[in-house]
């Protein structure tokens, strides 16, 4: 993952090579960017939470996004992701871990 491509997003932290997590909220979202195919459907479902990096063609989570205020939309984004690349990060066996 090209870390610089997310440099505009300030508080994002990279936990490992291909996973990034927004760390300031009680519930967190994890995008497996090795799976993400750039469908951008998560951004359509929850634009307040998900962004899209037009160079890497990968989804990202907005810095400071209030995930908990948009739980329903985020749930739709998770269910609707064709690559199953998004998960709540505290969900134990998250769906992005195969």
């Amino acid at each position: 993952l090209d870390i610089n491509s997310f440099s505009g997003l300030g508080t994002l932290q990279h936990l490992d090579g291909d996973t990034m997590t927004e760390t300031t909220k009680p519930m967190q979202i994890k995008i497996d960017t090795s799976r993400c195919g750039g469908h951008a459907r998560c951004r359509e479902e929850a634009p307040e939470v998900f962004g899209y990096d037009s160079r890497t063609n990968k989804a990202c989570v907005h810095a400071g996004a209030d995930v908990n205020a948009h739980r329903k939309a985020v749930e739709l984004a998770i269910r609707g992701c064709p690559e199953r690349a998004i998960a709540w990060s505290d969900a134990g066996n998250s769906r992005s871990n195969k």
Partner: protein
Amino acid sequence: MSESIEKIAQEFDHYDRESAACPWPRWARLRKEAPVAWSEKNGGFWVISRYDYITEALRDTETFSNQLKGVTIPSKPVPLLPPSEFDGAAHAAYRHVSNPLLSPDKVAEYLPRIREIVNGYAEPLLKQDAFDATADFAVHVTQDVTQLILGITDAPADLKKSAEDLVLMRGDREDAGRRLFAFVTTEVEKRRKSPGKDAISQLLGTMYEEDGKESRPLSQDEVVRMTVLLILAGLDTTTSAISGSIWYLLENPEAQKRLAAADERGWRLAVDEFVRWTAPVTGSARTVAHDTVFHGCPMRAGERVFVMGASGNRDETAFAEDPNKVVLDRFPNPHVGFGMGPHRCVGSHLAKAELQIALRAMLKGLGDFRLADPERIAWEASNVRGIRSLPLVRK
């Protein structure tokens, strides 16, 4: 009574009449009885027809190469087209260049012009007593939008035919390829002299940055080949999606009403469903990079593989509700109409915008029309599949 699966597999041909007019029963037999099959047609190739095998193959770029022989069976008689027909680091570098050209934000900038183009065709046609929804509408819309993106103002009359002959692999493809490359080369040279805001001008100003190599500007030849791909990929496929969706709506007036009343999300879901169901790209070809065994089938390096996404889109094991039916609000809808994995269609956001705008415009008057004659719908199939002619008459 029914054909043996051995015969269906050996004689599977994505160019034949059955593939054009009624491919679905054969796909279903393959999925159930031979999800990885060997066909003797077109030089011999593997056919992967099951959804889960398809997504696996599309993601396994180490085993299944785009670059060795391109993404069509047989290969196109033109140089390999980036990014689609490259692998690994080179592919990633080309995608970094092409992704921003058609990103959701970039497409949003084009929306007002796309609406103008669409309405410019739809409004007069809907006042006529008869028109061809493919030849008079979808073809023109996709051609004009492609020219808009590329900044082409004076396309030769035979541009569409050259592109079609190459995509559909018919007629004199070598000549079609030469003419298309000659035209695009002229356009690229024009843009170099007087750049605009179009995609060709953007490519000319872009650096190619491949991991482990020194960054450099894209060469003229690379810009030409990337532009040729943008032309080839967007014309026929989007035309087929628009035409197939209009055909469905004509046959299902209830769906016209539901769609007319749909909210933004309803439209988004419907558009993805139409892409799934019309499946303009039957399959994307790969070449086996090293000897392997794929779900029990021994594949040798160099053998061709047809990864048949259109069949995956009809796989009953992958979709909760009957995949042969259009479910306008199908959700989730993990279709592979744009492919999957690193080579997924770079133009998907543009294609979906075009489809939605085209259908919205057509719905304003489509209820007054019917198919002139269901027997006169002309289908054509190759690596892509779609309607060539869809004549409508006023009820």
